[in-house]
């Protein structure tokens, strides 16, 4: 028996299945410079397209003259809205139910907007052509403030008003004003008002979650190639959702979907930037049809930061009520959401403010109400989920700041306030006041583990001493202890309430076992660095008993991969990972019948054992999965078709709800505003852990993006709508020098509805990290009366905070 156990363990280890830190199969090509990113693609006769962009944030276009540009050597064509209009392609639908100009149709709404598309033999000729296009603008009043936009007489979008100038309905209902996009509500308005009116304690705060940008190191781009002989269009690009792009291209171009092949090659990071459809894609396709040649379009960094898919820009006003001893009774949240010139966020259709209604967080709040109003301004369109599920970063920041403000109001320790209000383990599945059903959690255990790991009481004692020393003039450095406890909502999602442009948000996996016992599996998702080729093979190895090293994972080619909605919102593991397990189980079910036949016993008399089926009670009688695979193809088995393949389209019954507890210890130099992160502890509970090494890597990366957003990264505009942070000289991306070492930890609370219990982890550290860094800054100044100050907490703003608190003497 002992031998058998040992052998089982050894056999399991050989599979490199779930739970092991398998090294990544992607890395050989990347470390040798042999990745295949879209800009690496070179096709015969390929042309290069690039945009003439608007220098103004709001202007009427009175004239475009392309004649001189067409004389520039190497320039073949210049497209304007007039050329696209006969095709109906001068505007395109956004993923949020709005529409967006592909090329400026009479006016421009933000700086950097696409005005004309120059197609040339190479990028230098295209740049020369851009210089030669003459555009005359008539400047219009600029609105960069959403509150001003919602009261201004200036009509930004002519399609928002009728002939009499009255607002017409938008995609999500009536407009309150011509620059208003939608109102979205969740929860109970009147009961919440009543709770707040009668509460013992109420804390109020208004916070601005600034505009920022996902800024993957590789910008967006594509290559479109229309084969006029066969009528087939191939579109390579940096697409986080290749199948959705195929459907959208088909719908707007009229090309039948089977004649379109979309390929996402290696993608150099996405973080939400590469979910949407951009004018560059449409123009490249049209240019390829017009010229009959492949056309490449690649953003430069300024194009990327100024025009494609910003994130956040939420003004959030909160009121939270509690009893005197700290039990929260109600929460009210109002958001004014700045969407820029077009509503081009990428949320599920029924959720124009994403899952902002997860803003009751990890707390048992009986009554709550949320209202979000969207506004048009003269800023770039977007509103994507930057390393988070739809608007979850905003929601978690909101509640984790409100908790801190309430703690100040109650004169209570913020860790204790959280402890008092956490949803208890026995309350799961938990029905939240704003509509979600949390699948599983054990918040108290995670919290206690985190506080113990950092010696929370010791930190508070040290901090109190530091305040004394500061007051006594012995030090100029303050110390902040940042806390956050987050609950994410990921894995969109159940088709009954989640779709994008009517496309249900299921996902898929198709497996083919080869006769000699290796396999290929294809999925509807696409990796952008998460290591899908490594981890999905691990799921399969555990499910079907073939070594992960013998399983190829392929994604991103719509001609071969099954239909899926792609990778964003941490949906790959919760949805496609589930499809993978389910498809694997179909393989196993057929393998069981084959094994029983081969061993001449009844199907019910064999059972799966790591990498084989054994006769129950007689483990020496077995057929390995490798043997079964060969028999599946090469042995005539009565009543069973040859072959060993399976496909699963998985429609999840619920979202998954990863959670975590983070603590940041920070020293702040009051005289320079410089922050020093002395310690960062991150405990993540993502349910079943597939590959601990990759989980840790995701946590390190997500925390670093959180650090960036909290401490300096922003897309800032001046009053004229000029982007002030359009290059990496001004837009903060942390280097190795600014980033600390992180301590990672975990608990495991599996998702009860997911086939393998996994919840997803890629975005958790960003979601939980931003409030943790921000709370550390706030906490350092709590003893001196700071209640709230807006991010990003760069050195200058921190210095100003210290100055306003009178700490500079």
């Amino acid at each position: 028996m002992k031998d058998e156990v040992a052998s089982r363990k050894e056999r399991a280890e050989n599979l490199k299945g779930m739970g092991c830190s398998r090294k990544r199969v992607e890395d050989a090509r990347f470390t040798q410079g042999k990745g295949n990113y879209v800009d690496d693609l070179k096709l015969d006769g390929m042309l290069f397209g690039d945009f003439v962009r608007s220098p103004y944030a709001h202007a009427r276009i009175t004239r475009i003259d392309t004649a001189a540009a067409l004389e520039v050597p190497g320039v073949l064509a210049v497209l304007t809205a007039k050329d696209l209009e006969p095709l109906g392609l001068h505007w395109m639908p956004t993923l949020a139910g709005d529409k967006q100009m592909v090329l400026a149709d009479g006016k421009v709404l933000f700086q950097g907007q696409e005005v004309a598309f120059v197609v040339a033999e190479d990028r230098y000729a295209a740049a020369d052509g851009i210089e030669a296009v003459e555009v005359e603008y008539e400047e219009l009043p600029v609105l960069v403030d959403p509150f001003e936009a919602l009261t201004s007489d200036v009509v930004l979008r002519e399609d928002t008003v009728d002939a009499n100038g009255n607002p017409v309905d938008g995609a999500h209902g009536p407009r309150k004003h011509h620059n208003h996009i939608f109102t979205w509500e969740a929860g109970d308005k009147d009961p919440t008002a009543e709770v707040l009116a009668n509460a013992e304690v109420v804390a109020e705060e208004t916070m601005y979650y600034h505009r920022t940008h996902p800024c993957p190191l590789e910008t967006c781009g594509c290559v479109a190639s229309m084969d006029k002989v066969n009528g087939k269009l191939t579109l390579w690009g940096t697409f986080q959702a290749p199948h959705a792009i195929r459907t959208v291209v088909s719908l707007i171009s009229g090309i039948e979907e089977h004649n379109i092949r979309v390929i996402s090659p290696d993608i150099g990071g996405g973080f939400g930037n590469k979910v949407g459809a951009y004018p560059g894609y449409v123009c490249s396709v049209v240019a390829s049809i017009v010229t009959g040649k492949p056309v490449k379009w690649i953003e430069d960094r300024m194009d990327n930061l100024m025009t494609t898919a910003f994130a956040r820009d939420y003004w959030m006003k909160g009121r939270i009520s509690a009893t005197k001893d700290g039990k929260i009774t109600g929460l009210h949240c109002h958001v004014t959401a700045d969407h820029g010139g077009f509503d081009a966020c990428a949320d599920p259709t029924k959720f124009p403010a994403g899952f902002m209604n997860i803003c009751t967080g990890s707390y048992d709040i009986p009554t709550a109400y949320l209202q979000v109003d969207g506004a048009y301004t003269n800023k770039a369109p977007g509103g994507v989920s930057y390393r988070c599920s739809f608007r979850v970063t905003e929601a978690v920041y909101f509640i984790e700041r409100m908790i801190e403000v309430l703690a100040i109001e109650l004169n209570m320790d913020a860790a204790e306030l959280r402890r008092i209000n956490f949803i208890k383990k026995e309350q799961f599945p938990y029905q939240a006041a704003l509509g979600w059903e949390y699948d599983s959690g054990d918040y108290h255990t995670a919290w206690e583990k985190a506080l113990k790991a950092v010696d929370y009481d010791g930190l508070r004692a040290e901090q109190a001493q530091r305040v004394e020393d500061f007051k006594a003039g012995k030090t100029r450095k303050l110390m902040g202890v940042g806390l956050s406890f987050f609950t994410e909502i990921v894995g969109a999602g159940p088709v009954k309430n989640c779709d994008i442009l009517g496309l249900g948000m299921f996902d898929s996996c198709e497996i083919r076992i080869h006769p000699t016992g290796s396999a290929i599996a294809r999925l509807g998702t696409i990796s952008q660095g998460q290591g899908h080729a490594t981890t999905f093979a691990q799921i399969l190895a555990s499910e079907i008993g073939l070594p992960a090293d013998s399983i190829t994972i392929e994604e991103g080619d719509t001609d071969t991969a099954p239909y899926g909605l792609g990778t964003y919102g941490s949906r790959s593991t919760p949805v496609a990972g589930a499809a993978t397990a389910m498809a694997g189980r179909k393989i196993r079910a057929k393998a069981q019948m084959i094994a029983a036949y081969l061993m001449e016993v009844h199907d019910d008399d064999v059972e799966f054992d790591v990498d084989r089926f054994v006769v129950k009670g007689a483990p020496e009688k077995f057929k390995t999965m490798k043997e079964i695979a060969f028999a599946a193809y090469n042995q005539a088995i009565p009543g069973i078709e040859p072959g060993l393949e399976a496909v699963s389209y998985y429609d999840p019954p619920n979202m998954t709800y990863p959670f975590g507890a983070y603590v940041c210890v920070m020293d702040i130099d009051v005289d320079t505003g410089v922050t020093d992160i002395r310690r960062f502890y991150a405990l993540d509970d993502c349910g079943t852990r597939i590959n601990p090494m990759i989980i840790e890597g995701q946590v390190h990366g997500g925390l670093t993006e959180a650090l960036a957003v909290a401490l300096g990264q922003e897309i800032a505009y001046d009053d004229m709508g000029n982007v002030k942070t359009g290059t990496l000289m001004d837009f903060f991306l942390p280097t190795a020098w600014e980033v600390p070492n992180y301590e990672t930890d975990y608990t495991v609370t599996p998702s009860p509805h997911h086939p393998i219990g996994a919840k997803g982890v890629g975005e958790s550290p960003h979601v939980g990290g931003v409030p943790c860094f921000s709370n550390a800054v706030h906490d350092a100044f709590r003893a001196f009366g700071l209640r709230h100050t807006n991010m990003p907490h760069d050195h200058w703003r921190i210095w100003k905070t210290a100055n306003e608190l009178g700490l500079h003497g």
Partner: protein
Amino acid sequence: MSQKQHYKITVNGKEEEFLAEPRELLIYTLRERLNVTGPHIGCETSHCGACTVTIDGKSVKSCTMFVAQADGKDITTIEGIGSPDALHPLQEAFKEHHGLQCGYCTPGMITRATKLLEENPTPTEEEIRFGMAGNICRCTGYQNIVKSIQAAAAEMNAAKEAAE
């Protein structure tokens, strides 16, 4: 557009001669003219380091150097570091310690790290972080990159000692 000029550069040991406009940036010469696509473009302002190559023994960001400035120079890119059968210790270490995710910064990162370890074979963590600060990674948070470079340094020093 300006007059094309004659240039001669050596890339990964191979001499290349061609006509190009002087304004052509070296990164495009490498990627588009010579099909050396390991170095990438991330920012065009010398900040991100995805385009890092080694020129005459120094780390250079090839996105802000004109081909005219590179005339006659000896250039090494990621393609000239290690081979599929004999990876450079840094390439091995990045794989072993999960020092990369999307892979876009990796060629520049490893190319820079080869120089860092030549300049200082026994760097402290602080020296690694400072020495690598010209290369941005959006995925890893650097912790595993630092670890990879430390591991490669240890490996290279042990090999050197064994050889002596």
